[in-house]
């Protein structure tokens, strides 16, 4: 950012800082006050795009199975969640088993019912933890956009389950927003899905 750009922003903002400047300050404050372990999680999350693509084949096989076949035990759909989006999103790591550390977590979305930017975070409920781990938006502020193409769709970006997402039962909160990605856990509309990570 050049010096003259800052001055022009100062003029436009009537002598205050601009929203862009506030964004930068906020990022520096959060870097300083949030636990240090958290950035490493984001590195895992950001690194997940490629493994997600590699895992698509297995999930495609799952999606193409005859409809009357029962789902394997590895899938996680909304549990205890009510409302119009309950069951609209399913979490999977592979076609034939549950999730383990090191897997890539994929989001399967019923695009007839849920569309928009997919924002997601997780909190471990067994054993309980107060820490919330954000999947989307990523540290770069990106969330995958799911369009209303109809039918079930595997979201192109997944989440690598790093060592910090150890074995346990997690509640994954998924929020759908229209205007852009959002880290606000109450933004848009959403549902919750339980995710079990095995040893």
């Amino acid at each position, binding site marked *: 950012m*050049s*010096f*003259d*750009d*800052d*001055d*022009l*922003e*100062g*003029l*436009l*903002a*009537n*002598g*205050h*800082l*601009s*929203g*862009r*400047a*506030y*964004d*930068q*300050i*906020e990022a*520096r*404050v*959060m870097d*300083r*006050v*949030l*636990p240090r372990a*958290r950035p490493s999680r984001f590195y895992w999350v950001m690194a997940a795009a490629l493994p997600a693509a590699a895992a698509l084949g297995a999930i495609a096989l799952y999606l193409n199975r005859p409809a009357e076949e029962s789902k394997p035990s590895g899938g996680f759909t909304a549990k205890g969640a009510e409302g119009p989006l309950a069951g609209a999103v399913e979490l999977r790591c592979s076609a034939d088993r549950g999730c383990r550390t090191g897997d890539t977590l994929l989001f399967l979305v019923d695009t007839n019912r849920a569309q928009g930017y997919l924002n997601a975070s997780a909190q471990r409920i067994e054993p309980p933890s*107060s820490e*919330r781990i*954000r999947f989307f*938006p990523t540290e770069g*502020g990106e969330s995958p956009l799911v369009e209303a193409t109809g039918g079930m769709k595997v979201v192109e970006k997944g989440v690598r389950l790093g060592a910090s997402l150890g074995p346990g039962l997690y509640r994954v909160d998924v929020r759908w*927003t*229209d*205007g*852009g*990605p*959002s*880290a*606000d*856990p109450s*933004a848009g509309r959403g549902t919750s899905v339980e995710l079990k990570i095995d040893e």
Partner: protein
Amino acid sequence: MGLRFFERVMTIFQGQPQLLDAFRRGERWALEQVYRAHVRMLDGYLRSLARAGNARELGLSSSVADALQEVFIRAFSQTARSAYDGTRPYAPYLRKIAKNLFIDQLRAQGRDLEQLVGTLPDASEGAPGDGEPLADPRVASVLSTYLSTLPPPLLGVYEQRFVLGNSQESACSALGVTRRRLRTDEERLKSGLRRALVTNGILRGDLSVGDRIVRSVGSHVF
């Protein structure tokens, strides 16, 4: 006056126990919400301190940005969060931190504080000086004319990012645009203003914009 009364008796945490709990636990979304609710007010307060303290350098944007960062780091420390009960008004608390930081900076400069401290804006009151007019009437006129010609989409970006100081995420959500679109429109706003200043003879097209405009901004800040 209404806002100041509201600030004295209310807090962002009023009726929001989930926000308070998350804030005290240090959850990012809660810290972000508290930051956004107060950052623009603190920006104005820090500039009013610089004016009252006749400390021009501390009212420059870069100094204000550094001070804002420091105030929020102190306020969001685990100790400070744990000690906050959620019932005391939060804005005066932040201004108190800002004022103490400002006094420390003056002290480090070797300034005589005995008489000066009494003239500084009270931390318990709202920040005065918000939205002060530009000192250079030619710049003010060009800016006003330029803003009056903005098409609605650009005007929306101007309001979200330069009047309200909203986050990129919040602005995108309010305007229904992508981040890339927002960034492009912010650049269009700045390049349009630069052209207007050149067209009106305030800036010369062949000069560094920064060299010339800094004088206008300087008079604007103080």
